[in-house]
C-alpha cells in the first residue's frame, strides 16, 4: 500500500521535483526507498518467476510435440546466458602474452 502511495505521488508530482541542496546524501533516500518498495519487488519477482516457469513448461511441451531442438543463446546486446551455461570463450592467454 505504501508503495502504491509512493508511486502515485511520483506520478502526479509533475514539476514538483525541487532543486537538490548541499549536505544531502542521496544514499539516505535511496536506502529508505528500497526498504519501502521491498514488498512490491518481492511480489513482482515471484510473479515473474511463476510466469517464466509456465512459459518454460509450454516451451518444453511445444518442443517435444514439434520435435524441435532447443534454441541456443543469441547475440542480443547485453543478454547473457544464465549461470551454469557455457558462454562464448575469449582468448585470455593471448592478451596476457601481449601484456607481458
Amino acid at each position, binding site marked *: 500500500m505504501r508503495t502504491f502511495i*509512493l*508511486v502515485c*505521488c*511520483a*506520478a502526479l*508530482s*509533475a514539476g*514538483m*521535483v*525541487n*532543486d*537538490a*541542496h548541499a*549536505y*544531502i*546524501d*542521496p*544514499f*539516505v*533516500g*535511496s*536506502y*529508505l*526507498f*528500497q*526498504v*519501502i*518498495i*521491498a*514488498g*512490491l*519487488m*518481492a*511480489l*513482482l*519477482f*515471484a510473479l*515473474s518467476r511463476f510466469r517464466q516457469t509456465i512459459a518454460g513448461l509450454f516451451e518444453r511441451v511445444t518442443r517435444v510435440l514439434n520435435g524441435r531442438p532447443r534454441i541456443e543463446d543469441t*547475440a*542480443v*546486446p*547485453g*543478454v*547473457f*546466458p544464465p*549461470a551454469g551455461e*557455457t*558462454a*562464448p*570463450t*575469449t582468448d*585470455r592467454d593471448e*592478451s*596476457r602474452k*601481449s*601484456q*607481458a
Partner: protein
Amino acid sequence: MTKGHIPGSFRDPDAFLFDYRGVLYRQINNSYAQSYDLLMRSGLYDNLVRDGLLIGHREVDLSAGQIDKAYKVISPDKVPFVSYPYEWSFSQLKSAALATLTIQARALQFGMTLKDASAYNIQFVHGKPLLIDTASFAPYRPGDPWVAYRQFCGHFLAPLALMRYTDVRLTQLLRVHLDGIPLDLAAKLLPFRSRLNFPVLLHLFAHAWMQLRMSDRTADHRKPSGTMGKHSLEGLVDNLTTGVAGLKRGTGHSPWTRYYADIIYDARDLEVKKEIVAEFLDNTSGPTVWDLGANVGVFSRIATSRGLQTVAWDSDPECVDANYRQVVENKETNLLPLVVDLANPSPSIGWENTERMSLLERGPADVVLALALVHHLSIANNVPLKMVAHFLSRLCRRLIIEFIPKDDAGVKRLMTVRADIFPEYNREGFERAFRHCFEIVGVREVGSSGRVIYLMANREAP
C-alpha cells in the same frame, strides 16, 4: 622503478591500480582480504570470468605493490582501449547496464553483492561489456538493500531513459555529472509519457522524489533503519533488468546512417577507395587503428579484417549505434565504435583533471584513417588545414587521409550558404599544410571522383 598510481582508481580504499614497468597491476589492500577471498573461493570469480562478464587476472609477487598495505597484487588481463560512458551509444550503454545487473544477480547467488555500479567500471573488450574492477564485490549481509542502487540509476537508468524519451544526445550529461546524472535533473528533463513506463516511474521518478523528501531528515545523523530481504533484492535487480531491457532505442535514423545508401559519388569509385585503403593499410605496421569519422564502419572493417585492433570514432550517435549492433550481430572482437566530436573531443576530466583521460592521452594510434573528414573540419568548422594536420600528427604515427576538392558535391553542399573564405583549401594548399608534420609516402586518385588519398608518415613519431 616507478610505480605510478592510475588517477581513476583513488576513491576505493580497498584497492587501487598502478603501472609498474609498463604493466598494469591492481593492489588488493588488507582491508579487502575477506571479500577477495570470498570472491575467489565462492566460485563467483570463475563463473563470471568464464562467461566473459568479469576481467580475468593472475596473482603476482607482492613486491610490486605497497607491502605495508598489500594483501595481494594482481595483474588483470589487458583492456585494448579504455572508453567512457559519454562516448557510448544507446545500445552500448544498455549492454553495459544489463551486464552490470547480470553480475549483481550472479553475485547474490554466490553470497556477494556489487558495492559499486559505476559505468566507468565497465569496458568493451572483444566487443562485449566487461567488469574491470575486481574489487567491486562485497559479502552480502542479509537485510541490507543494494548499496549501489542510486549509482546504478544515475549511471545507467537515467541516461538511458533520457536517450530514449528526450534526446539521444543527452548522454553527454555524463561528461558533466561524473557520478551519474542526478535523478531530480533526469526527472525534470523527461517528458510526462515516460511515467507510463513502470520501472522508469518507480526507479527514477519515485526514487528522485524520495531522495528529496528525505533530504531534510539527514540532520538527525541516524543511519536509516529498515531491512530488505534477499528475495526483494533479487526482485529489485529483476525489475531493473526488465526496465532497462524494455527501453528501446529511437528511430535509429540520422542523415549520416544512410550515407552509403545516398552516396554522392560513383559506386565504382567507392570500390576503388576500398582497394586504396587496403593497399595503404598493408604498407603500415602496428596493431592499432583509429578510424576518424567512421560512419557505420565500412572502412574500419578493412582494418579489422587484417587483424588490426580498431576504434571507429564518429560524432553521430546513431551511426555509432548501428556500427555497434553490427559488431554484436557479427560477433566482431576487434572493433570498438565510439562517439566523439573531433571539433570538441573528450577532455581530461574529474579530480585534478586526471580521473578520465582525454582523447589525445589515449593515443597515439599506429594508423589513423581520416577519410572524407578534412572538409568537415576545415570548411564546416573553420579549422585551418595546418591546424588539422597538427591535431592529426598528435594522434598517429601513420596517416591515411582523403582530400576532397571544392568541386565535389559533398563540399559544394557544405558551402551552399557560406562565402568561400577558404582560399587555401585546394590540393596544393592541403599538401603544403600537411608537409609541416607529415612526409607524404603514397598518393592515389580515387577513380574519376577528383578525390585523392594519401599515405603519410608522421615526421616526429617514426
